[in-house]
């Protein structure tokens, strides 16, 4: 990560990583989606989707922000057509209140090192320009000390607030965010369908999902991918990036 990227993630709790996927890669994945009734986790939809788990452009961010033992926690897709909504702003540290139910939603910094609990890499297979809706957040709210005081009208997207932002993304961009940042899904307003693949990651010792990946469903896997699909643990857990390859 560049110095500016570290500053932005620490300040705002999210980051748009530009041009992770090429136009050809985006087209290939959209064609697979168009031709099938895609169900279940996207990581099981075929090789192009499996490769997203440890995409070489996003893995360095995962290591920097979740540590060297990062694991894939769960993944799913969000497809939205015009007018559809998905509820209001949620998330935040501990799930938005002290001692809340989402103990794995956290952000911390010490001595130059950032670490997070559950995080998301959202692969965008369709553009979400400004005003289109989709992912929105309150930048900086991963450090909020008063999340319960956010006005309810703002939480439900019933009234605009300057501090609620819908970052514009293009097809092929990846949006990283920590679940400690207060976020949600604005109603979709674009003419085209929203297509987002959410790959959610945890540090190696932690899990949000109560079930773990069955690697036998994935066919051929590199050793690195196998390490990323391990259930949570601490003792003798291998680093995702093995110096020996």
């Amino acid at each position, binding site marked *: 990560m560049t110095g500016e990227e570290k500053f932005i993630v*620490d300040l705002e709790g999210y980051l748009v990583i530009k041009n992770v996927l090429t136009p050809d890669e985006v087209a290939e994945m959209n064609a697979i989606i168009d031709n099938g009734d895609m169900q279940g986790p996207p990581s099981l939809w075929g090789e192009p989707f499996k490769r997203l788990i440890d995409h070489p452009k996003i893995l360095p961010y995962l290591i920097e922000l979740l540590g060297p033992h990062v694991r894939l926690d769960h993944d799913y897709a969000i497809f939205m057509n015009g007018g559809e909504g998905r509820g209001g702003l949620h998330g935040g540290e501990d799930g938005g209140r002290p001692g809340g139910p989402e103990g794995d939603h956290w952000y911390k910094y010490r001595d130059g090192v950032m670490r997070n609990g559950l995080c998301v890499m959202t692969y965008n297979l369709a553009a979400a320009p400004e005003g289109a809706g989709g992912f929105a957040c309150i930048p900086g709210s991963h450090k909020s000390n008063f999340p319960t005081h956010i006005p309810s009208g703002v939480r439900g997207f019933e009234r605009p607030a300057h501090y609620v932002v819908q970052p514009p993304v293009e097809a092929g961009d990846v949006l990283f965010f920590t679940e400690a940042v207060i976020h949600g899904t604005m109603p979709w307003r674009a003419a085209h369908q929203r297509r987002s693949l959410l790959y959610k990651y945890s540090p190696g010792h932690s899990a949000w999902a109560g079930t773990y990946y069955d690697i036998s469903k994935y066919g051929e896997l590199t050793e690195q991918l196998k390490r990323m699909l391990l259930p949570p643990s601490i003792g003798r857990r291998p680093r995702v990036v093995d110096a020996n390859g």
Partner: protein
Amino acid sequence: MLTPDEKWFFDHHGFIILHQVVPPDDIQLMIELGNRWHDMTLEELPPPLTSTSRSGASSPTIAHWINHVQYGDAAFQRLVLNPEIMRVIIALTRETPCLVDCALTKNYTTSDDINFHASGQDYGVEKGEPYAGFLNAAISLVDVPPGTGFVCLPGSHKRNFEPPEMLSIYDGTPTVINVAVKAGDCVIFTEALYHGARRWTEAYPRYTVFNRYIANGSHSALPIESHKHLISDEVYELEQPAVRGQRKHVVDRMLKDRATCHE
């Protein structure tokens, strides 16, 4: 003394806006005095008013300011003790404010930009209340439209990394926000927040009074003992060093007045 919305807003942004807290008559008077004083040379300013921006160390095109304006007219003392502004200052300083500076700044379209800067990181939350050790109450005497004036990096009072050098006061949201205000509005911000000012764009000059407060100790420049007869006892006390846990009489009075208002 901060509402839940205000606590959330200040903690999140590092600043808060109080709307229309200054009487129009006082605004007009302060502008007239500003016009008079800013046209004076350093030697012509009525003591103890001075202008540290004209000391020679500052750029000649900087937006100049007149220091110690509270000694120049009662209107500025009323501003120092403005109940709405002090409500927030008292809350954020754990009820031990010390007034360290009152400066009347005048910007022209030819005045310099003020690039991002911050002073320390004395901000936190204690017992469910935000606390800031160094605060700036910026009272605008004129309308400041969007595109010019105060800018900041919301949330940067809690930063762990310094902003990159290429970050510009002219960049856009959400990282950089520009705060438009009306005459009589007050933006209170922690000096830990990275802030600056875009070049002034309007035909009329921009006038801002910056009243700065700290929560512990003093900056030693105030009070000016030789001219204490020019300020009220309450302003004089407010300029005394702050001691944690010791409330000044002026703070007691303001808190009592506020409680009486709400009975």
